[in-house]
């Protein structure tokens, strides 16, 4: 009887530790995710990227810390004005998202980010790079949509590319409108699977649509 009790307590105490461990992870992630809305400087971004990477290093089986680190590297690449440095950030973004992908294959959000990396690489030198990266980007966004048709982010980003593509090449505001509308509809209906899952994009899409008078009545 004594043994059984000890075993029971042991089991309970372990689950307790596990829960404590998990809540530590959730708390740290929540704190970091909350900070993403208030990023102002390059130092802020580097700080937060490093923080996500520390969590990723400590938690061997979690893909989200890598995902957010990768996302922040992409954002940093857009913010850095030194052109030659952009690819360095995107290389790091690539490494991080590949780690995420190895931990969680076939995740729609990971494909969104891979598409975003291609998009960023293309924008550095569209004339020479569109041939490689346009297809890669579309491939990733389409795969993201196929894996989760309710995910609003692929269409948000595809719409941006369409918007900035000259009209002669099938782009422009009119062509982008229906894509944005579909994305916005999905944003309004989107419920993240848990509190740590990505939910970025809605505010910036709405702001962008307002700024360019694209909101459909």
């Amino acid at each position, binding site marked *: 009887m004594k043994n059984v009790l000890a075993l029971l307590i042991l089991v309970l*105490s372990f689950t307790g530790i596990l829960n404590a461990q998990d809540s530590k992870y959730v708390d740290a992630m929540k704190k970091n995710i909350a900070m993403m809305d208030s990023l102002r400087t390059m*130092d802020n971004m580097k700080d937060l990227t490093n*923080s996500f*990477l520390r969590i990723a290093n400590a938690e061997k089986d979690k893909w989200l810390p890598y995902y957010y680190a990768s996302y922040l590297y992409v954002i940093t690449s857009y913010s850095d004005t030194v052109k030659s440095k952009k690819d360095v950030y995107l290389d790091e973004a690539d490494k991080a998202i590949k780690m995420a992908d190895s931990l969680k294959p076939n995740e729609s959000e990971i494909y969104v980010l891979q598409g975003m990396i291609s998009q960023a690489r293309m924008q550095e030198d569209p004339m*020479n790079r569109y041939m490689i990266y346009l297809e890669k980007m579309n491939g990733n966004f*389409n795969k993201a*949509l196929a894996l989760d048709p309710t995910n609003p982010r692929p269409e948000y980003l*595809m719409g941006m590319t369409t918007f900035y593509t000259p009209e*002669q090449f*099938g782009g422009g505001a009119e062509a982008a409108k229906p894509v944005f509308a579909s994305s916005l509809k999905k944003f309004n209906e989107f419920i993240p699977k848990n509190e740590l899952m990505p939910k970025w994009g809605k505010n910036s899409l709405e702001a962008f649509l307002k700024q360019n008078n694209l909101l459909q009545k």
Partner: protein
Amino acid sequence: MKGIISICILVSLIPAAIYCQTKITGKVLDSKGSPLPGANIYIKGSYDGTTSKTDGTFSFKTNEKGDAILVASFVGYKKYENKITLKKVDLKIDIQLEEEITQMNAVVVSAGSFEASDEKKGVILRPLDVLTTGSTADLYTSLSTLPGAQKIGETEGLFVRGGSASEAKTIIDEMIVQKPFNSSVPDLPSRGRFSPMLFKGTVFSTGGYSAQYGQALSSALILKTQDMPTQTITAINLMVYGFGGSHTQLWDNTAVSVEGAYYNLNPYNKVFPQRVDWDKSTSSTSLSSNFRQKITENGLLKAFVSYSKSEVSLYLPDLDNLPNKTFYSLKPEDYYSNVSYRDILGDWNLFGGFSYSLDKDRINAAGNNIAQDQQLTQAKFTANKKISDNTYITFGAETQNTLYDDTYNQLNVKLNEIYTAGFVESDIYFTNDLAAKIGIRTEHSKVLDKFNLAPRISFAYRLGNYDQLNFAYGRFYQTPEKDFLIMYNKFNYENADHYIANYQYLGENQTFRIEFYYKQYHDLVKGTIYTYPILNVPVVPFSNDGAGYAKGIDVFWRDGKTFPNCDYWVSYSCLDTKREYSNYPTMAFPTFAAPHTLSIVFKRWFESITSFLAFTYIHASGRPYFNPNNPEFLGDRTDSYNNLSMNISYVARWFKSYSVIFFSVDNLLGFANVYGYRYSTDGKIRNPVLPPSLRSVFLGIFISIGEENQYQ
């Protein structure tokens, strides 16, 4: 009960831990002692850590206790790990990070070569540049706007730094191409056989190239074919002198494409005045197919096969019996195939390839029937591995079996050459700023029955963020051409030593390069063989007694920054060369070299009309030509060569895909260019060698029909 006690201990420890924080402070520095901001410093396995500030300092608190590992990591530097003990006492630790030597951070050895690639950083050209330079969308025409390459109009080939066309080799997926150009008729150049669209990367070496390649005394053009295509697509091409089409089908791990084309220059040559007396202008049919199969994560199998057949005939002036003309006809038939596999197995980067080609020319020259068949079977493998922190090693071997079968009327000559070669090369990164490539190659030729040993060394030293110095030395061997080998059986290898030094600035959208070179030729093959044009000079006996040199300066400047939407480059080559070879009775400045060559390429993109406008101007000083009346051999020079060509590419979006309308004019200003003169046997009559027409015009429409984007 014990369990409960342990739980109690555990629980009582938790709040205690909170008050057990240890503060760690310090500074992160690089090996030169400068602060490194942005480094990630943390306790391994925990979330505790921070990022170093602008002055390199850091400070953070941790709840961990006892033995722990402090980690510092920063992109481009080796990870720092240090065992520490955490026991409430504040720690002060300064960290020095060592720069990581990786191929990505390190200086790239680039003496003697120009690279065009989408994938790599720090290259001088992009594949798109190849398509929009000059007027013909021909790879070799574009390369002739780079310094070191000569502008030769009367025959095809790459003439590099005083070298003849046979001294430059084209290599596709690691293997030499027996016949990179279409067959041509006397004094009229032909185009490259392979479309520039097939390749994702181009390295044009004007000297000092790697030990992985051989059999080219002057230059190697190293081409890498495209990997997996990215979409299923159909293309239709309509041109002033023909049409073609292709289809690429893409599956998950497989892609197949087929392409066919038919050209006929007869209608074009009837409309635009020709200086050539054509009987039947060139007509050709070609078929090709590409296959790609992804076998493992990194393993890709590539196969390419092509077949083409063409026909051309014309009348050449018979200078000894004017106004008589001699009839000349040519019917070539060419097969080419290349299969290769590349993979990464553990630490090893492996490549294996096989190629077979058969080229048949049927010539009728003034009633003489000439048949020239050439068959090449070759195989090559290379292996590459990182053997230490800063050293990579590459080795490999190749073998080529060539069968020549020539018939001149009833006379038949056969020759079988088996060439084998092996090489070892190492890339050593002493620091990120100093790198060396050291290699050695050995070759054996069955016909010559001799071995050779060719060392190759090159260095790169980075001066600042954007500029570097390069040095190269190498020895290059080449087996004499078939025309000589069938005449005499005691030949040795021809060889050349290259010495190259350059300075290169590779800024953001601005490139400057100046290169000095000296090339010493030894053992060049001498002897008279009666091929066109036949020179009226004393018969030279066969030997390896020829020699020569070439020295000069190549300058390149490219600027895509100063003028918005504009990109231009300027190349200048200064060349001094002399050689005694082939049927040359003495040392002379060869016919295929100009002392000064200048080319200017200017491109502008017009966003509003989605069009590319490009101009190419080439100036080359006069080249020597053979005049039997001049006692000095090759003592005469032509007038200088000038050409301004332009092209417009209009990019349109039809059928949800991109289409291009390409229009070009060669020699827009109508410069009267003369490439040289041909003399009658008595030297009394001469005929200029001219381009086939004063100007030439090209119009093509390239339509692609892809899959619709699926997201709408």
